[in-house]
């Protein structure tokens, strides 16, 4: 089939619709058919808007919608508000929540002609690295369904990896776009903090959260960023930053490219495939004329500790709004107000969310604030200064996205700290605000009966330098073609 979802790109589909080679209805229907076949096993989507999507596709085909994404189906992580369906954050406490307004990112996609196919599963309130902490069940990795897809945007990563949608939105607070992209073998981009409006994104840690795209190619991700970016009067942290266009100049290689490599990212504790992917990428970039320079990021090892103080402190404050009064789950039989709060929150939140609210409350509490929270804010500055120094010597930093490939479902759920350490290569970018992109870099060697699993590399760039970062990522992609690989999918038993 000419426009087989497993062999095309979002940009190709967009051009085909614009050139009347295929209709939007045909494309939307193809993806809906795949969702019906594969989603029951994978659990990437928790809501599907089939009728609405087909109606919107008909309107695109009738010529009612132009725009750079006209007729393209997109998956949305279910922590972004949509005026249709529910916005649950995969939490019992928001199970029945119908948002009264639309997230700016979703509004921008729709204004560009995109069609929201459905909403995807996540770790409850985006707190997790495996999509196992969801009130609606675990999402499965399409490369091996007894493995996690990563998280917290696991549903969006799987939607793209399994070709249930050609593109998706996720949110990244400590790696929640890049890590699942890595574990599922797709491209995941965390833009600079402030590049994309967070209005209508349910807040987890407001100084770290950022919305970004998943796609199969760097070009598709660049096109999505182009649509998503820009200042928004409804988000006072969004910034009017130059730097685009992101898609138009993508195939122009970066002259005199200097790539930074840091020993602090290359631990012996990593899975062997991680070093293998970095070594290969170094060779590829050298072959493209890049100069590899050593950079020093001495505070990397403090990243996770800093991140889990800052993120949980902000989360404990943000999640205070779930009180069972204005919206969300409300416990029955409360004796008084305090009892209503306690019962509603205890029944509505899962264990990981409770753990983080308690940790965040503790590090902010009287007697501990200076030792934990204030100290973490100072180390955050040191981490940012590490990056500032590194980017004086290089255009981008080449590093792993995760410490290894997808792990088994259930392997880390009983040990929260082991789960947190997954974010070691991603969380520092959120603390510093800089952009990062994870791109496919091949697969593990199937040994001892282990399945073939995706391996990825990550590129980190200076603030608001996405245009160059994407061009660098594209150089690697064009030279390797790792992005063309697809999993063999099994239907539900």
């Amino acid at each position: 089939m000419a426009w087989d979802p497993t062999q095309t790109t979002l940009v190709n589909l967009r051009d085909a619709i614009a050139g009347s080679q295929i209709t939007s209805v045909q494309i939307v229907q193809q993806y809906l058919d795949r969702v019906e076949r594969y989603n029951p096993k994978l659990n990437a989507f928790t809501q599907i808007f089939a009728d609405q999507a087909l109606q919107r596709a008909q309107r695109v085909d009738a010529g009612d919608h132009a725009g750079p994404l006209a007729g393209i189906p997109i998956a949305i992580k279910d922590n972004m508000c949509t005026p249709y369906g529910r916005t649950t954050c995969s939490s019992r406490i928001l199970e029945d929540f119908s948002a009264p307004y639309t997230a700016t990112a979703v509004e921008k996609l729709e204004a560009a002609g995109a069609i929201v196919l459905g909403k995807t599963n996540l770790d409850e309130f985006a707190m997790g690295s495996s999509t196992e902490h969801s009130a609606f069940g675990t999402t499965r990795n399409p490369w091996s369904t007894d493995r996690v897809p990563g998280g917290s945007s696991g549903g969006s990563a799987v939607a793209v990896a399994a070709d249930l949608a050609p593109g998706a939105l996720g949110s990244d607070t400590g790696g929640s776009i890049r890590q699942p992209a890595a574990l599922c073998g797709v491209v995941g981009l965390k833009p600079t903090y402030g590049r994309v409006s967070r209005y209508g994104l349910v807040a987890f840690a407001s100084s770290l959260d950022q919305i970004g795209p998943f796609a199969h190619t760097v070009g598709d991700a660049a096109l999505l960023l182009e649509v998503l970016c820009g200042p928004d009067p409804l988000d006072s942290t969004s910034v009017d930053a130059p730097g685009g266009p992101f898609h138009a100049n993508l195939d122009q290689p970066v002259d005199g490219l200097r790539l930074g490599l840091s020993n602090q990212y290359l631990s012996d504790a990593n899975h062997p495939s991680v070093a293998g992917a970095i070594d290969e990428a170094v060779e590829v970039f050298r072959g493209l004329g890049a100069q590899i320079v050593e950079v020093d990021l001495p505070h990397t090892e403090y990243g996770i500790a800093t991140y889990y103080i800052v993120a949980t402190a902000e989360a404990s404050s943000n999640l205070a709004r779930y009180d069972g009064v204005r919206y969300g789950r409300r416990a029955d039989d409360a004796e008084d107000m305090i009892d209503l709060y306690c019962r509603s929150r205890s029944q509505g939140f899962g264990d990981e969310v409770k753990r983080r609210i308690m940790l965040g409350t503790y590090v902010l509490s009287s007697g501990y604030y200076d030792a934990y929270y204030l100290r973490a804010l100072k180390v955050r500055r040191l981490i940012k200064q590490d990056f500032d120094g590194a980017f004086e010597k290089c255009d981008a930093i080449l590093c792993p996205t995760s410490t290894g490939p997808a792990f088994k479902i259930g392997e880390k759920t009983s040990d929260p700290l082991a789960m947190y350490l997954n974010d070691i290569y991603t969380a520092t970018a959120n603390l510093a605000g800089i952009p990062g992109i994870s791109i496919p870099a091949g697969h593990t060697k199937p040994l001892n009966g282990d399945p073939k699993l995706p391996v990825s590399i990550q590129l980190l760039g200076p603030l608001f330098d996405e245009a160059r970062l994407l061009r660098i990522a594209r150089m690697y992609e064009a030279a390797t073609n790792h992005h063309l690989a697809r999993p063999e999918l099994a239907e539900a038993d």
Partner: protein
Amino acid sequence: MPEKLSEEQVRHVAKLCRLTVSDAEVEHFREQLEAILEYIDKLSALDVDGVEPMAHALDVTNALRPDEPSVGMAVADVLANAPKKSPPFFQVPKVLGEGRNA
């Protein structure tokens, strides 16, 4: 090494964040939180004297807009998700009830 986390501290924190925890949960959370606190205590090894705290990634401060009235959300929309309401109000139990927290 940080001090050990007591069950009493866990109960106190749970109360501060309006969570009810059973006796079994207290020990479960205590053990996990203690391990996490022990890990994050590695920051105490760093010399941070004179380092300016960083609360925000970008060098921006207050973002102001002109003080002009605009249309807010309709009351019906605001109340649409309320578990209990008595328009135009949210309905709640007695704040000063006879309950155990009174």
